[in-house]
């Protein structure tokens, strides 16, 4: 019996010992805290003091924005006359020779009155943009589409001047630079207002909110699958096309779609030694090597005597079939499709 009590006492003793140890550790830990491991007992600010101070040179390299009040305007200058050749070379394949826009790429010119009348408004640089700073900033920041941040500031001033000239906003010989910037007024300046939403105050009506006979139903013209990449995967659901108003863009052949994505940039203008799309003789000569050879070069890339063709035009996400479709599209355009067999 005594023995049992003794064992029990020993157990108790061990527990007490452990508790004492824990308390000592806790006290010690608390001392550590008190000695500066927590914020409450430090008189320092809450700053982390991490990271590295940005030098003026580092900031200058990245600080590319330009503001309507002239903040950030760069050095350099240019005229529309300076910008014309640059524009033709770097911009016209998408935006059109006169800013009219190729395909569905953005137009740069338009009717300013269309913004007011509400009928097919043309939201272009000339008709909608409120400040020339936005044009300078954007051209330098994001254009040309395939080579962003490649233009010098002089080139940026010159191309900006040319786009303003296409819109009859400045004269051809207007020297566009930091000094003349403030004198350029955009037609649509002053037509932006602060967001007024909520601008609709609907009532939460629950019963008999309108007359059943007043309801007319308008059905989606395009049908649900139209235009989707994998439209033909869907065979069930509303066949709801009331009339054929399929936009022309949808009717483009698959090959043209790929062409516009991957090939147009070089093959429209003959950039980097690429045969132009309408150069039938060049394509006929290539076709003599056989269609498979053409497909292979388009898919795998090709180093020719005049230039270099990147694999899939640099658009590696395209499937082989999409690229082949584009090759066929070029041949069809040149009446060479019969040669395929």
């Amino acid at each position, binding site marked *: 019996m005594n023995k049992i009590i003794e064992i029990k006492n020993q157990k108790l003793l061990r527990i007490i010992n452990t508790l004492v140890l824990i308390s000592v550790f806790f006290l010690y830990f608390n001392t550590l805290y008190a000695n500066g491991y927590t914020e409450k007992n430090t008189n320092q600010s809450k700053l982390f003091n991490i*990271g590295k101070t940005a030098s003026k040179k580092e900031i200058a390299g990245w600080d590319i924005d330009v503001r309507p009040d002239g903040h950030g305007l760069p050095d350099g200058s240019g005229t529309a006359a300076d910008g014309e050749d640059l524009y033709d070379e770097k911009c016209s394949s998408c935006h059109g020779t006169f800013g009219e826009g190729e395909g569905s790429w953005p137009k740069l010119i338009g009717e300013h009155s269309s913004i007011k009348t509400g009928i097919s408004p043309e939201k272009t640089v000339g008709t909608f943009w409120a400040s020339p700073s936005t044009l300078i900033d954007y051209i330098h920041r994001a254009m040309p589409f395939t080579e962003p941040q490649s233009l010098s500031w002089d080139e940026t001033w010159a191309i900006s001047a040319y786009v303003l000239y296409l819109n009859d906003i400045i004269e051809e010989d207007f020297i566009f630079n930091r000094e003349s910037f403030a004198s350029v007024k955009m037609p649509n300046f002053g037509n932006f207002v*602060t967001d007024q939403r909520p601008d609709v105050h609907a009532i939460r009506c629950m019963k008999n909110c309108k007359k059943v006979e007043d309801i007319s139903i308008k059905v989606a013209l395009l049908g649900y699958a139209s235009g989707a990449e994998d439209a033909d995967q869907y065979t069930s659901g509303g066949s709801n096309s009331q009339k054929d108003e399929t936009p022309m863009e949808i009717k483009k052949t698959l090959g043209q779609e790929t062409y516009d994505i991957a090939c147009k940039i070089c093959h429209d203008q003959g950039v980097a030694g690429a045969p132009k799309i309408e150069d039938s003789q060049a394509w006929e000569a290539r076709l003599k090597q056989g269609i498979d050879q053409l497909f292979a070069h388009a898919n795998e890339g090709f180093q020719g005597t005049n230039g270099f063709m990147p694999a899939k035009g640099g658009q590696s996400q395209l499937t082989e079939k999409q690229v082949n479709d584009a090759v066929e599209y070029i041949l069809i355009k040149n009446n060479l499709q019969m040669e395929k067999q």
Partner: protein
Amino acid sequence: MKFIDKNNIKSEAKKLKPLDRRSFLRKAAVITGVSSAGLLSASNLPPNIPSWSKKLGRAVNVNPYGLPSKYAGNVVRRRVPWLTPDNIASISFSPLAEIKGIITPNGLVFERDHGGVPDINPDDYRLMIHGLVDRPLILDLDDLMRFPSESHIHFLECPANGGMEWKGPQMGRLQFTHGMNSCCEWTGVPLKYILEEVGLKPEGKWILAEGSDGAGMSRSIPISKALEDSIIVYAQNGEPLRPEQGYPVRLFNPGWEGNTMIKWLRRLEIGDKPYYQREETSKYTDLLYPYDKDRQHLKGKAYEFSFTMEAKSVITFPCPEKPLKSHGRYILEGIAWTGTGKIKAVDVSFDGGVNWVEAPLKGAVLDKCWTRFSIPFEWKGQELLIQSRAIDYTGYVQPTYNQLRGARGVNSVYHNNAIHTWRILKSGEVQSVQLSCRCDDE
């Protein structure tokens, strides 16, 4: 190279011997997408033992980063090729009909890119903060992760979501009418901590946020938002941001239009005025041509800095992708969200908005977050016009198309939060429709 053309399959097959012909047709069926599913499946149904029960499955960790079942191949983002001139500055849509709960899996979050998706080595990542601050700083990814982090579940919606529907119904699937919208748990540093670190000057009122992608995407953000709840985000749904969501770092402005949430964030410049970048003047402004008589003075004007995503909802079942297959009892389900805070209530109509009934909210109701609603209904084969209407805590009620067009016209492209209508046909198929459009009435 052999071409297999759908139209030529039969004539091609005729040239072959019977045995070859069968194999040719089988291959052609695979290539052209003619399904032969269903022929084999009966052997896996009761009382038979399914084939996978009588053998071993795949080994563990065959795909170190897990993949969905090969039978879930339909649950993917999709593009609408004609919407944009190329597939680099383009959009993919989330498959809302297939997504359950309030979290969008990372691979299904919609994308809107303006200059393609860059691949950024995190070792080369830097965030520069400068302008009206005491200490201009350059932070690397490790620095950012030393700041206190927070995780919040918020929706992410492109303000152009539904932009194709302003003039009339155009897209016929939920994925394309509402799919520029996803909802994730976002983790990162509240921007206010970083502004404390650099020492924000009192005259600093706006922040230019700039991406390092080929579009140099840039937007001006008022300092009040940055101090309220903007987050510098580096993780979504528990893992690093996906490249198409801005890996390694993006800005997140809860409840605001997705375009302000600059991806591949490289620079924050603090200034005293907004910067009027291309994407906040030429685009992402709302051109007005109001029909309402008391708003005629706004014709030709455009809202600028229209940041907040107003209350909106949509029914995700039934929908064009999920038709009704037989008569009987169903549970209608949908999602509601608002950039103003929490969703207070959602109403549902089965008769094109003549009568409404409140649909119970389902699961968590969080701030600036998808909120689920559901309500049972009996379908006896009649035609229905189903709608949902969200209400937020400011008292705002999701408007009809007529009301929205009255206030803004049809040219504004962005911020279409109108009540959407699905028409259930007698066959059970579901159409996307619009009701009594004022632009037709007048």
